[in-house]
């Protein structure tokens, strides 16, 4: 479904992506792991066109994304941002129903659908009329997840979905992501360095380090990959081929 070929991106002298080749088949939940600042978010943003890659090809269903109509292309995606990125100036239901409202759905119907979607992520109807600033961190994440899945996208990107959450809330979010992907039948790409998230949501795992994918394999193989980068990362060892930033 998504194909990346020799995708490269640098910011000044800092080479973030150095020729990424990756295929994500339809319906798969791929988790990309890697240390902070290794370009995981940049990779997702390149696919969505939020960051312009320096070189390489991105294809969706075999078509070069630069040749696809932008609105229609983006309409196939949902994204959960690291900090939620809910619109402060809009109540929660308008955040969740943003795309429906944009597409001209009557407000009453859009609100009803938003409340349904909020219920799917465990938020009560009374939260619909609140503003994002009135929600706790975990509730904001759920509301952002509701926005990401509201239009039933074919592909969902999750950027550090559990960052900043307590372990219980992180577990709830992981479960919701897994359910959302399974129920919607969506293709999912999650980036994280939380190993609980990896083990809960991943069908396949890719390790990004130094601008390259060092290892790609099934989640079930993660513990016996035999790859020194993967071993160091999943066990959180300070010594190994990945030099920690001190």
């Amino acid at each position, binding site marked *: 479904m998504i194909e990346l070929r020799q995708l490269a991106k640098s910011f000044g002298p800092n080479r973030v992506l150095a020729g990424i080749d990756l295929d994500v088949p339809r319906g798969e939940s791929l988790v990309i792991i890697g240390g902070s600042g290794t370009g995981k978010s940049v990779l997702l*943003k390149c696919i969505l066109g*939020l960051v312009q890659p320096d070189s390489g090809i991105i294809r969706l269903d075999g078509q070069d994304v630069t040749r696809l109509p932008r609105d229609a292309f983006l309409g196939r*995606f949902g994204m959960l941002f*690291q900090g939620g*990125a809910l619109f402060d100036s809009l109540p929660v239901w308008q955040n969740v129903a943003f795309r429906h409202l944009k597409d001209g759905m009557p407000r009453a119907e859009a609100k009803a659908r938003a409340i349904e979607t909020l219920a799917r992520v465990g938020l009560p109807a009374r939260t619909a009329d609140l503003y994002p600033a009135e929600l706790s961190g975990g509730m904001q994440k759920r509301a952002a997840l509701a926005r990401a899945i509201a239009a039933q996208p074919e592909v969902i990107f999750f950027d550090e979905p559990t960052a900043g959450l307590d372990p219980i809330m992180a577990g709830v979010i992981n479960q919701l992501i897994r359910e959302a992907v399974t129920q919607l039948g969506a293709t999912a790409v999650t980036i994280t360095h939380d190993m609980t998230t990896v083990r809960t949501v991943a069908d396949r795992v890719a390790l990004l380090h130094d601008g390259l994918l060092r290892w790609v394999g099934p989640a079930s193989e993660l513990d016996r990959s035999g790859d020194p980068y993967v071993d160091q990362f999943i066990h959180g060892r300070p010594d190994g081929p990945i030099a920690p930033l001190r």
Partner: protein
Amino acid sequence: MILLAALARLGAWTLGLLAGIGRFAAFTLGALSHGLRPPFHGREMALALLQIGWLSLPVVGLTALFTGGALALQIYAGGNRFGAEAVVPQIVAIGMVRELGPVLVGLMIAARVTSSIAAELATMKVTEQIDALVTLSTDPTKYLVLPRLLAGTVSVPVLVGIGDIIGILGGWAVATQTLGFVSTPYLRNTINFLEPLDIVSSLTKGAVFGFLAALMGCWFGLNSGRGAMGVGRATKGAVVAAAVAILAANLALTKVFFAA
């Protein structure tokens, strides 16, 4: 060698400046071009009108009122030196309508609205809300910038018109209450002295200043750096740029309208 290095730095600076001017021009023209292409975000436009126009009324009114009153006192005191105290109504009117009304309203809008727009958009950028808009198939320029530019251009002339009237009334109140002027002749002199061009120039300045104030807020906000410092710098830069642009535009427009 040193000369070459200095020339290289100058060249790089010049290229950077030209690139910046080009980006700013492209941003402005791009934003305006959205005004010709649907969809239009009516709700955002209404909110921007409320924020920029309606909610600025108190600060604009108070500024104009105090300035008009102070202007009457100054003109009376200055005119007294050569026996020209009687010109207070005329000079207050011309001073407020041609110059102080539009400039003070413009500067108050720069302080209140430009800072607010820059801080809001910069925060949206820092918290990835701008990226989120894009992923929801919404052009941030059309959704965030155009409504603010239109609201600034439409509502600030109205604020200037109201500010002009309140400023004149401030001068009238001070003149009649403390300087011994009689109300009806004061107002008659004011109205008779003003010409249509004075009012046209005042409102035109308001439209240009409103546009500039909103434009600077949007430009600096959407181009802010990261974190709280980035938001702070964007806000400060926007207010300074808007104030300077308004004062420069005021000189240019005054020359266009009134240069002999």
